[in-house]
Each structure stands twice: as structure tokens, then as C-alpha cells.
């Protein structure tokens, strides 16, 4: 600790003595981040036990624009409250048959139940948590005797019906108990809730479901807002009291911050075994790209604004590519200095970041591994 204090004192002295050094620090956000203390740092999945969140409404009082758009974003809808679940409301009765087992998800007012019967016996549980916004689908978490289970079947939007949950064994379950779903380990429970909700897990593993807010909200990424609000009210600099991941360097943002949920390249060993299913893990995929670097122009937020719903129009992303790459027409006043595409100037993602279908997900995901994709090329896992 003494050493740490000494280090920061030296930084202070250096900043007084060398204006040039200060200029470097100001110009390069990663340098700023390099000086961040552990207290200032924040990770969405490493919420300290004593954390108190103020909630989105408090943030929205000042950050109206972000608050409004974030409400509609995939981040917010990473988990749906059962009472207001759009998916469950719009699909009041879902059923599926697997061997001798019949599954039924039934809406009853603001509640939904998940039941399985083998014709003789029936087990039924209230759905307590609905994971996913329903863009691709939705998986359910059931609670039984204080333990959590992942539903064996999930809702898929494309077919508006149930099918096996991704990764679940697709055979006929051995028993009615097995047919319900998979018992989640303590680590998995912590992992699911820490990425799909805000404030549900502290100290890495401790569940605090009574404090849960559905979805990834403001404070999941920015940390608790209490001090920030106080600072603003007292006229102090607001930036010093809230964590801003937008100041992180490109690699740290992508591979550490966003990847804490979206999975980093460092997890390659596990992810490679998932084959085509790993297309869902964007930080891992983009890391494979030739153009990947610490440059913020290739980081997650270069293309995505987490405060907004995901943009679907390829033209929007073309502009991002042209931050670095040049147009074929060298006289054009847009585009960077990088290599131009010999084929086209628009719809870059359609060729270089093709959509890949995961059959078991009934959905096409954008492969963030930016490359020249040859026709019929095998998926590079």
C-alpha cells in the first residue's frame, strides 16, 4: 500500500514537472486507465458485497436520452420480469413433446408455469426467471427445493415454439426429473444472474436475488451511482465519481470489460470446443481478426452503443469500417488510410462478417471474426 501511495505521489510530482507528460496522459485514454486505482475500477461481474445501487430511475433524471434508449436495448432485456414478459404474454400456451414427455408453458395472468408430464405423473413449477429478450429465444430458470434448474426446453422466436435449450442433451430424458431440466451448479447460477441482471450477485458468488433488477442496467456497467449523484448535487466533478468504461483502451474494453459476459479470447480453449456455437461470443471472435488491436476503432463500442438497441442496417456499420479503410475511389473525402476492398464500398459486413446460423438456436448470429470469407469455407472455430 505504501508503495502504491509512493507511486501515485511520483505521478503527481511528474505531472507538475512535465507538461508534455500530462499531454500524453490526456490524449491517450488508456494511459488514464493505467493510473486508475483498484477502487475506481469496475467490473460488471465483480460487484463488491457492500455495493448499493440507486437504480436506473435516479440515473435517468439527468441522463434522459440514454435512459430512454437503453430501456429498449438488448442489454436491458437480457432478462424479462415474468409479470411483464412480452414473450410469455404473446405466447400464452407453448407445448412440445419429447419421447413420452409433454412440456407445457402456460400463462395465467401475470404468472407462467412450466410443466412436464410423462402421461402418469406431472411436475409443474412456476417460472421464476426468463433469460433472454426473445430476439433469438428465451430460456427459463426454475427453482426447486432451493436449487435452480435450467429448463430443458426454451422458446425460439423464429418458430414461435419450444425446442431444446442450446447445449442441452437432445435425447429422450431418462426420468421425469431429468426431463425438467439441468441442475445448475452454484457457479453457473452466479454466472447466469450476474450477466443477465443487475445487483443479483455480489462478491463473485453470493446471490442477492431480492435486490435483483432485470437486465443489464446503468449501474451494471458504471458501478453504483450514489456517490456520483451526491457529487453532482454538491457541484463536484461528476466524472470522478462514476466509472466510465468508455475510457478504457480498446483491448481492455473488449477482452476484459465486455468479455466478462460476452467471453474473451482467453477462454479460447473452452470456446473452441463449442465449434459453431462460439459465434455467439463476439470478443473471442473479433480477437481472431487480422485487424484486431488495442485500437478503439476495433473495440466493441466502435460499432455498438450499449445504450441503444442493436443497429441492424449494414450501412451503419459501413461507416465504422471506413474509419480505418479507404474507399476504392481514392479521391473520395471519406474513409481512412487502410486498404480498400477490391469488391465493394458498402455492405462490408455481409461479406466480411457473415451471419452464421446455429441450427439449435434457430438464429443467425453475426460472426465478429472479420475476414475474407470464401464461399463454402468451413467455420473457423
Amino acid at each position, binding site marked *: 500500500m505504501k508503495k502504491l501511495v509512493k507511486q501515485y505521489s511520483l505521478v503527481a510530482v511528474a505531472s507538475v514537472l512535465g507538461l508534455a507528460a500530462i499531454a500524453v496522459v490526456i490524449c491517450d485514454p488508456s494511459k488514464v486507465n*493505467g493510473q486508475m486505482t483498484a477502487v475506481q475500477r469496475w467490473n460488471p461481474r465483480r460487484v463488491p458485497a457492500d455495493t448499493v445501487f440507486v437504480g436506473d430511475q435516479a440515473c435517468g433524471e439527468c441522463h434522459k436520452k440514454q435512459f430512454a434508449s437503453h430501456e429498449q436495448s438488448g442489454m436491458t432485456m437480457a432478462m424479462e420480469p415474468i409479470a411483464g414478459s412480452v414473450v410469455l404474454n404473446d405466447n400464452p400456451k407453448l407445448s412440445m413433446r419429447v419421447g413420452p414427455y409433454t412440456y407445457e408453458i402456460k400463462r395465467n395472468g401475470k404468472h407462467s408455469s412450466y410443466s412436464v408430464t410423462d402421461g402418469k405423473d406431472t411436475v409443474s413449477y412456476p417460472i421464476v426467471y426468463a433469460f433472454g429478450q426473445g430476439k433469438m429465444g428465451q430460456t427459463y430458470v426454475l427453482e426447486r427445493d432451493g436449487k435452480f434448474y435450467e429448463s430443458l426446453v426454451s422458446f425460439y422466436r423464429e418458430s414461435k415454439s419450444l425446442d431444446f435449450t442450446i447445449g442441452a442433451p437432445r435425447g429422450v430424458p431418462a426420468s421425469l426429473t431429468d426431463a425438467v431440466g439441468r441442475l445448475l451448479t452454484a*457457479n453457473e447460477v452466479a454466472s447466469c444472474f450476474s450477466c443477465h441482471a443487475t445487483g443479483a450477485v455480489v462478491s463473485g458468488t453470493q446471490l442477492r436475488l431480492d435486490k435483483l433488477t432485470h437486465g443489464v442496467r446503468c449501474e451494471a456497467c458504471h458501478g453504483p451511482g450514489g456517490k456520483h449523484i451526491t457529487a453532482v448535487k454538491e457541484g463536484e466533478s461528476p466524472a470522478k465519481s462514476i466509472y466510465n468504461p468508455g475510457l478504457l483502451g480498446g483491448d481492455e474494453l473488449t477482452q476484459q470489460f465486455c468479455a466478462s459476459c460476452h467471453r474473451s479470447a482467453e477462454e479460447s480453449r473452452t470456446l473452441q470446443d463449442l465449434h459453431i456455437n462460439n459465434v455467439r461470443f463476439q470478443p473471442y471472435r473479433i480477437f481472431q481478426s487480422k485487424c484486431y488491436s488495442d485500437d478503439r476503432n476495433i473495440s466493441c463500442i466502435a460499432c455498438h452503443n450499449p445504450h441503444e438497441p442493436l443497429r441492424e442496417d449494414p450501412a451503419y456499420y459501413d461507416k465504422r469500417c471506413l474509419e480505418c479503410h479507404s474507399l476504392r475511389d481514392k479521391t473520395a473525402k471519406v474513409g481512412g488510410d487502410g486498404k480498400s476492398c477490391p469488391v465493394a464500398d458498402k455492405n462490408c459486413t455481409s461479406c466480411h462478417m457473415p451471419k452464421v446460423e446455429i441450427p439449435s438456436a434457430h438464429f443467425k448470429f453475426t460472426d465478429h471474426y472479420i475476414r475474407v470469407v470464401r464461399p463454402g469455407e468451413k467455420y473457423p472455430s
Partner: protein
Amino acid sequence: MPSNRPNNPARSKVTRMNADQNPDLNPRLSALASLIVLLLICPTISAQSPRNTEAEFDRFVKLADEARLAERFDDAISLYGQALKVKPKWAEGWWYIGAIFYQRDIYPQARDAFQNLVALEPERGPAWAMLGLCQFQTAEYEQSAIALQRARTLGVGDSSELAGVVRYHIALLYVRFEYFESAYDVLMEFVRLGHETPKVIEAFGLTMLRMPLLPKDIPSDQKEKILLAGRAGYNMAARHLDQARTAFDTLLSQYPNDANVHYAFGVYMLPQDADVAMKEFKRELEISPNHFPAMTQMAFEYLKRDQFNDALPLAEKAVQLAPKLYAARNVLGRVLLELGQVDRSIKELEEGVKLAPSSPEMHFALARAYTRAGRKEEAARERETFKKLQDEYNQKRQLDKSGSPPEQKP
């Protein structure tokens, strides 16, 4: 020995042992000996002998082959020896002599023959395998490990039996030299092949309990515990989690105060319930206060939880106790980085990379530290190395999964 796995700097120097002090291993090798006999009497082998125009050489070879096929091995050795005097660079001659000596349990002479062979044909995997197995028998364990590793790198040909024997012995040597994580990785190959034999279980037991012993050296009062730990380890590796848990429960109830039992259970629990695992690691540290692997595991877990100040002393102590343990350098470097001590972090991570140049995670961590320090080119270089190593690892795994021929049980 590879440097990409934890080792113990305090490990004792190799103790020389006589081959006949090693009775436990001889039955293990009987299957291999049969294979060698087959090789010796197989006429197709002699067809592989290079043609030589020198009459004397041809005569010796002819007579030697006849003696070998007639199982007059003393004559065969003498005649091959004479042929080799004429043509000392005749590789097949060294192979035959080595194989005959090996089959007759005369390991020093067999070793010398294979030594000559690998000097002539350094890319011949089976020769390295036989050399390593001889050196194992003559208790030259370090040399044996080097030779067997070389054999695995080069490949041991189509003999799945030889591959299995080499795998088993390299696992034992990793255990012997306290490279327990490497031993576990090698033993995993048996799990993938479904080879749940008593010898494999025993090797798993030694690995799980971190006992740097060869099977022949296991005290009789430890055997039951080792087999129990081995069953736990095998089932853990095979993802038979319920069976592993049953074995661990028995192990814990019967040996609650023995070293490494809680650590092994903690490792099993870590992917499932990190809180339980942490309690087990803490208990291990009560039993074995200098248990640096437990310290390293705990430091990593605290790091995951952003409890850097809890992680730091454990990581520092682990590095102090095991300065050559790259995993300890890895966690210490990462913790220091999170605490903003970038220069110190880089120093630790660079040391880790030196210790484990083929560890992708070390390069990934170092890339992050360089990035934080603004050393962009070095960061990019480390990222590329990480990517390259990951690709290599992936390719090797694919080969292991799809390319391995079915093997006999060791």
C-alpha cells in the same frame, strides 16, 4: 522437462535406482516385450534391412537374422554386433540389438544400442520411445523423460501399444518430478480412450495427492488412499461428477487430515462451487501451510472476485515458495496489474513467459500488461503469440480426438 507447468524447485535430485528394484513395472512391460518379440520374429522386418554389397556384412546380417528368427538371441546379438563393426551406421542393426537386450531385460545394453540408433536417426520416434523406456528401467529418470517426450513429439508409429506404454511412463515421470498438472493432462488421454485400468487409477491417485512417487515406491499403508484418490481423479477427468463426488466423500471422511486431500477436492469443486472450493483450499493451508498450489488457486479466485488485496499476499507467497511456478507468476502479475503496479506486473509476467513460453494464458496476460503500459508493439506481439499457441493447441486437440488409433489398455 517442459517448463510450462508448475514444478517444485525444492524437488530432490534424481535418485538412481537399480532396475531390479523396480518389480512393479516389469509386469507393465510384459505386453510391450511380447510386441518386441513379434517384431523380432516378423520376417517383414528383416526385409527392411538395407542391402549392402559388402559380402562380409551381408553374411553377418544373414546369419544374425537367422539366429534371431530361430530365437537364438545370444548368437543374434553377437552376429549383429559383428555386422555393426563392419558398418557402424547400420541403424536397423542397433534396433535389433536394442530390442533383443530389452526383451531380455538387459536394460543398460539396450539403452546403449538405442542411444546409438537415435544418434544415427534422431527423427525416429519409436527409437526414442525405446531409449526412454530403457532409461526408465535403469533409473535415469531425467534422461528417460526427455527421450519419451521426444518420442511423443515425433510420434511412435502405428503401434498403439507402444504409444500407451510411453504415455503411461511419461505420466509417471511427471509425477516423479512433481509436474502434477502435466501428469494429469497426460492421464486425461487415457480417460479419452476409456482406459480405466488399475495402473491408470493408481497414477491418477499419485497425481491427485501430489505424491512424487513411482508405483514401486508407494508405501503399503498409502495404497488404499491413492487408489481412492485415483478413482476420484479418473471420474473427475471423465466428467463422471457423481462418481467422483462419491470417491471424494469417502476420501475426505477417511483421510480428513492428510495432505492434499482437501486441495484435490477443492480442485474438483472449483468449476462447480467456488465458495466450497475456497473453503477446501483454506483447510489445506491449515494442514500444509506452505501449500503453494492452494495459495495460487485462491489468489486466482480472489482475482476473479476483484479482491485484489486478498489475492496479493497469497500470490506473493506462492511465488516466494515456488519461484519457478509459472502459474504463481501469472496470478501475481495479474493482481499487480489490477492494483495499478504495472511495471512490477510486467516483470512478473515476463518471468512467467520465460518459465512457460508455450503457455497461451501467460502471453495473453503479458499482452494486457504491455497494453496498459502503452507498449503497443510488444502487446501486439504477445497477442499474436497467444493466437498462434491457441491454434497449435487446438490443432493438437483435434488430432488427439480424431487421429488417435484405438489402443490396447496399458
